């Protein structure tokens, strides 16, 4: 049987993350709540969508996809399906990262140079492709990709330092 108590614990542990991502993307509290509700209820009704690995990474991706679907459709009552199960790799470091304090992550992101932080935020929260970033900013496509990779590497290093600190 599905365990409502276990589900409630999952909600308590991850709802702020889900809501935060949805709100950052949608910038509207009602729509963010709708997404949060739909993500968790879909998880309850179809737990097999999560096929193991890092749960935080998985639910973040699901929330981001659903929120971006809504932004793209410009219709807040859309009911797109969640993606099929997406296995996220799970290592000890990743588990540790997933349980970092949000404030530390924020500080780490703030340490990135603007030209690296901006494309990462645009890609993640706005769902903008690297090609679109290049068009908007006039920066060559290859440079955009390299900046994204460099930024993620630096973020990873900063976070590793925070985990081991």
């Amino acid at each position: 049987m599905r365990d409502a108590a276990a589900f409630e614990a999952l909600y308590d542990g991850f709802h702020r993350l889900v809501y935060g991502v949805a709100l950052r993307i949608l910038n509207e509290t009602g729509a963010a709540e709708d997404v949060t509700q739909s993500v968790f209820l879909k998880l309850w009704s179809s737990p097999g969508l999560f096929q193991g690995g890092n749960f935080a990474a998985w639910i973040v991706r699901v929330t981001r996809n659903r929120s971006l679907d809504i932004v793209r459709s410009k219709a807040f009552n859309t009911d797109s399906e969640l993606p099929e199960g997406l296995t996220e790799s799970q290592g000890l470091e990743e588990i540790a990262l997933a349980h970092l304090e949000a404030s530390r992550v924020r500080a780490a992101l703030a340490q990135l140079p603007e030209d690296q932080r901006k494309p990462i935020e645009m890609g993640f929260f706005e769902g903008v492709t690297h090609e679109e970033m290049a068009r908007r900013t006039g920066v060559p496509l290859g440079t955009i990709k390299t900046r994204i990779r460099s930024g993620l590497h630096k973020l990873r290093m900063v976070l590793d330092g925070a985990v081991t600190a």
Partner: protein
Amino acid sequence: MMNSHDPFLDDVAVYALGALPPAEEGRVRAHLRGCAECRAEYALLNPAVTAVAYDAEACKTGENGPQVSSLLKARIMREVRASASSTTRAAESARTADPARARRPIVWPAYLVAAACFAFALISTTSNILLMGELRQTQTQLATTQDRVDATARRLANEHVMLADLMSTDAKRYATNDGEIVAHGDRLYIAMHDMPMPPRGKVYQAWTMPKGGKAVVPSVTFMPDRQGVAMVALPENASAVTMVAVSVEPDGGSKAPTSKPIAVVPLN
């Protein structure tokens, strides 16, 4: 120093971020299956992408940002618990109907339950209190609604009996001006039409004369409807009454008639 594989590694980073167009995503995914170096890069960068999401949590649900409504949890858990109870009932039915199916229970994957364990420390009793309060309120509303339903059902049943009595061919009818007194079995009714509305502050009151009595006793008060029709069930036993009268009385009724009766009907 840049090597020939670096462009692929850049693509992997953009793929991990989720910023590749769909067509390119497929290409990178296919490459990842066969390239250990790129898989390692993806595994390295993916947690950093997840961390970006935690930045949203810090920004949007922090001290200065909007809080997640506690009602949201109540809403979600209400649906979850309703679904859980209906699933339990369905499973019971299935177990009865198909014993083989009973050996294949639907389970929540163990890794999801394990993931839930990460969060057990964060369980708050606040939402439970909220849910309990909501449950009690719903139970009270349900009880009130049930009372109304019962009262309506009783009223409809009484009206059904009254109509059946008034239309019964073996009822005893005693005519008066603009109406009649009807006795059917032990039940007694006043059925009037074209009754004028009584003056302001006044009502109609029925009176009955008990068998062997020397004076009328007060019965119910009533008002005609807008069409001047009044169908009233009297509480007295028809077999114990020898006369029915109606008079206009002050609102609330009188202990003895204070005006000349508009109808006096002996029950022979």
